């Protein structure tokens, strides 16, 4: 394996140099004569001269274009193959060294035919990866195949160390600015305290100096204290007491009204699932995961096989997903938690059968005495999820957007118009109700959305 890669490395360097030479020759020649077959032969000759290995592959390589190969690879191969890790099919870096060019071409065009022909290598690979069948690609030309193979022979890029350093610096910069804020606040409090102490001290010293100098410090005459004057004025006392009672009643009422209301509730979940990345950046429909919101009372917590629909092929986040607050390592760790819960072994790309449930923390929880049906709102009324749940696609950590109180429900029922057109089954009752209320547009409340027994029974 190691020597294979090394070989590929050398060939690739040779290939680049050869290409460079050809291009150099081209550009030199262009000034004098049009590039013709002679220059091309000269170029290939030079390439051969430079080449240490004399395999068939090296001779063909100058024709192949790894950049075009990358595009083709991403279009046709990347669903099942990755250059450096096993997916549905094997990792493909350096595959051009492991097999003959002709064999690879035959395999890619129709692997099943090759297996049936009894080719030893083909049967071995089939035994290892079955029952996954590689799709035949008859539409790829010889040139395309060479391009793809050339792409797989490219040397792995070193992880961009500068990037990591940059994000690290940005991360520490972000947190240090937070500390700065705290420091400034602390310093201000300290300065304030020192000022107060100084004021006392200055006052005291001044008095002492005045006494020492024999200056008589005027002490104010004893007058009736303010509070005694206040107590003696009964009218003022009554007004103040009423105001105080009203004020405290107001605050007590406000405090009691928010008991049982979980607006803003933002618990820590066992797996840090970012709705922002999934629903926002990647534009995945809410109902992709919460599919039962279309058809049932609850929107459902997606079972982990829904995660694995994509994450079977996405074991790590891209560099661009990481933010100053959450690093790539953090997100990759969260995906690893998913694999652990669902029992997915990345190295063998198969399920181990050892799964464990994820204990998600429920956020939106109506009391048991209220009936609410998602499908009625999502499928029938066609209300966007964001109306009740807020801009979930922007939430890194999900929180409860709406108070979910009865007043909040009623408000929306009174404000929302019912979709009356294109609803033949209900035309008659719509007409009758419209006549009864003397309106053109019925609201959900007028349709019975304020009947107690619709939600409480």
């Amino acid at each position, binding site marked *: 394996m190691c020597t294979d890669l090394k070989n590929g490395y050398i060939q690739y360097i040779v290939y680049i140099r050869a290409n460079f030479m050809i291009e150099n020759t081209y550009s030199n020649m262009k000034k004098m004569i049009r590039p013709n077959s002679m220059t091309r032969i000269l170029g290939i000759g030079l390439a051969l001269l430079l080449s240490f290995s004399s395999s068939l592959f090296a001779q063909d390589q100058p024709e192949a274009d790894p950049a075009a190969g990358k595009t083709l690879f991403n279009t046709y191969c990347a669903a099942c193959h990755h250059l450096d890790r096993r*997916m549905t099919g094997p990792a493909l870096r350096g595959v051009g060294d492991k097999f003959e060019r002709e064999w690879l071409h035959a395999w890619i065009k129709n692997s099943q035919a090759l297996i049936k022909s009894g080719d030893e290598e083909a049967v071995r690979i089939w035994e290892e990866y079955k029952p996954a069948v590689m*799709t035949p690609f008859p539409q790829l030309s010889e040139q395309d195949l060479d391009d793809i193979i050339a792409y797989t022979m490219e040397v792995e890029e070193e992880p961009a160390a500068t990037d990591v350093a940059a994000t690290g610096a940005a991360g520490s910069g972000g947190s240090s600015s937070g500390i700065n804020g705290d420091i400034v606040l602390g310093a201000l409090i300290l300065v304030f305290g020192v000022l107060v102490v100084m004021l006392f001290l200055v006052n005291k010293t001044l008095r002492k100096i005045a006494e020492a100098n024999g200056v008589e410090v005027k002490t104010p005459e004893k007058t009736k204290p303010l509070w005694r004057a206040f107590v003696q004025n009964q009218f003022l006392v009554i007004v103040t007491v009423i105001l105080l009672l009203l004020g405290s009643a107001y605050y007590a009422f406000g405090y009691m009204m928010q008991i049982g209301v979980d607006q803003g509730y933002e618990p820590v979940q066992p797996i840090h699932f970012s709705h922002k990345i999934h629903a926002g950046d990647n534009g995945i429909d809410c109902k992709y995961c919460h599919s039962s919101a279309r058809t049932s009372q609850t929107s459902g917590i997606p079972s982990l096989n829904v995660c694995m629909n994509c994450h079977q092929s996405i074991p790590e986040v*891209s560099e661009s997903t990481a933010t100053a607050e959450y690093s790539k390592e953090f997100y990759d760790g969260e995906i690893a938690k998913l694999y652990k819960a669902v029992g997915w072994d990345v190295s063998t790309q198969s399920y181990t059968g050892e799964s464990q449930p994820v204990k998600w923390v429920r956020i939106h929880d109506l009391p048991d*005495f209220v009936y609410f049906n998602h499908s009625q709102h999502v499928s029938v009324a066609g209300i966007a999820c964001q109306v009740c749940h807020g801009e979930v696609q922007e939430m890194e950590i999900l929180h409860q957007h709406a108070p979910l109180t009865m007043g909040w429900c009623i408000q929306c029922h009174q404000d929302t118009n019912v979709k009356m057109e294109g609803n033949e089954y209900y035309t008659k009752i719509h007409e009758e109700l419209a006549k009864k209320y003397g309106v053109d547009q019925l609201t959900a409340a007028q349709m019975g959305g304020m009947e107690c027994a619709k939600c409480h029974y």
Partner: protein
Amino acid sequence: MKVFGKIGMVLGVAAIVASCHDKRSPNYQFMPDMYEPISYETYQESSAFRNGISAQLPVEGTVARGHIPYEYPNTLEGYAAAKENLTNPTPAEEITDEYLNEGKQLYGIYCAVCHGDKGDGQGILVEREKLLGIPSYDDAGRAITAGSIYHVIRYGLNAMGSYANQVNEEERWKVTEYVLTLKQDLESK
């Protein structure tokens, strides 16, 4: 100085009350016995079951209401047989524009993120290079049919997972019919 003490006490009480409001934990409730259900809720943890999960799997051999048996197994032979023989049981006259439109909406939710709105394999996840190599529906090597589309939605294939728990049988056929129209559009180009 007494006044300072009183002010301090009021501020202290206010601070304690304010610190009770923690967004990481749920709020207090009046009479929780009216709020909390007596019966088990779907995802609730419960000691009544051995593995502690109240969302138990149905007993083996349970037949769901409306279940229609699917004869093709999740094997290569099953795939080949479905591709060859399986067709939409819905009568042709019921496959109207409305039927296809419902298929289109479901396709937009479940398929378009990868397969693209046109079915050319250029969904948003592919454009953002999260998932790669999604084939176009007119791919010659695959040559999909109604049967193979339905089979793959139901069981998944290679990197694609099964969508059987997200779309039911009727919905799968709606999506299948819509995918066939997309394939036709791609091929006529």
